[in-house]
């Protein structure tokens, strides 16, 4: 047992690599915040464009969303990172990870927002327009507030799931938690940095999983 402690909980090794893991921790949070904000914003914009009901544009949105839902995120990251340079577009590992995950989140968010907007009965639109509200006003003050309630739970869960994808950035050398932990492990020849990395992920994501669960209870899809 002391051997196990020495191997996986080697305090000396942990102390040496703690700063690196902390750097990874901060970068993971930074990347995750960027992905969530840009992904959800883009998803909302796409859903709003879809409300305008312009047939060819809607078809394009549906195809793009379907493709992003069918492709594994890691394949997308690798495509952007290893294939795009051949066309002269060179993205950093950070850039490819951000762009890939933000696009995937945008696709899921668009579906969720669109489903939320569809769930508002037609009568609400018609009543709002008949009181003299413009199309944009009816959308902004009547439809979106009602749609928002339905979207909170699935959007939170999807955002959490995709945020965990930041670990995929390790494949293209983004220095986030997993990269820092595996690098430190191979330098030190000791798995204690992996233990630290695991702890960092739990500290980061356990609160999110618990938050997701409680939001799911409060804003459930069933009315």
């Amino acid at each position, binding site marked *: 047992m002391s051997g196990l402690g020495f191997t996986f909980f080697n305090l000396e090794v942990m102390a040496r690599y703690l700063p690196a893991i902390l750097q990874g921790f901060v970068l993971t949070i930074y990347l995750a915040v960027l992905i969530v904000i840009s992904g959800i914003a883009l998803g909302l914009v796409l859903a709003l464009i879809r409300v305008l009901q312009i047939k060819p544009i809607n078809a394009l949105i549906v195809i793009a969303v379907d493709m992003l839902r069918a*492709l*594994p995120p890691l394949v997308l990251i690798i495509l952007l990172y290893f294939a795009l340079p051949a066309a002269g577009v060179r993205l950093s590992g950070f850039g490819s990870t951000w762009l890939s995950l933000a696009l995937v989140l945008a696709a899921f968010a668009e579906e969720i927002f669109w489903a939320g907007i569809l*769930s508002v009965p037609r009568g609400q639109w018609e009543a709002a327009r008949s009181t003299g509200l413009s199309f944009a006003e009816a959308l902004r003050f009547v439809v979106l507030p009602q749609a928002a309630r339905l979207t909170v739970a699935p959007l939170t869960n999807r955002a959490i799931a995709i945020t965990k994808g930041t670990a995929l950035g390790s494949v293209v050398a983004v220095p986030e938690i*997993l990269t820092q932990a595996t690098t430190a492990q191979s330098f030190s020849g000791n798995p204690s940095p*992996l233990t630290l990395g695991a702890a960092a992920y739990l500290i980061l994501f*356990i609160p999110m999983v618990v938050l997701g669960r409680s939001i799911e209870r409060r804003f459930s*899809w069933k009315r």
Partner: protein
Amino acid sequence: MQALIDTFFNVQIIGQIVPLLLRGLGMTALLCAVVIPVGFVGGTLVAVLSTVPSRLLRALLVIYVDVFRAFPPLVLLIFIYFGLPFLGIDLPAIVAVTIAFLLNTSSYYGEIVRAGIESIGRGQREAARSTGLTATQTMVYVILPQAVRTVVPDLIGNTLEVVKLTSIASVVALPELLYAARSAQALTYNPSPIVAAAALYLVLLWPFVRLLSRFEHRMLAVA
């Protein structure tokens, strides 16, 4: 334009690496055939055990589910694959992948099946028990079949995510589709193999994305 086609859709190169990609696809299929049933059975077990009266067991299961939903799957896989050898346990890549997927997907399937079980009215259980069925028989013959049927869309959605997730096995050098594509890219100095692999994922998974979209819209129409 021709340069772009030669770079990304080079027919000659794709022709050369088709056998490699097909072998990768076969490995991906094999991987799915292993991890999906294992994860689903594990998850159903978690869900069924969550109905026992023992508070301690229920609390342990909640911790299990939350912890393994908090870890990004790639992190689990890396830790199992690179961490366990320090305990003197050397696992082949496919075993490490199976264990990582069992821990991750059984938590997700478990949450879904548990929601299904909770949606079945008390009366079903009481009626079944009053006809003389044991608690186990009630669960297996009465509750579970109904519970699973109510959550079919969520089960399909999760299974789609699991299939996409098998791409992370490439990180531990398991020769599945993405790994095959990356080796082919390294061999030919051309990104066409990665584009071809992405196209394969798209073609194979698109029908399921469409199916899910239909389910989601129908659910809203009922709500």
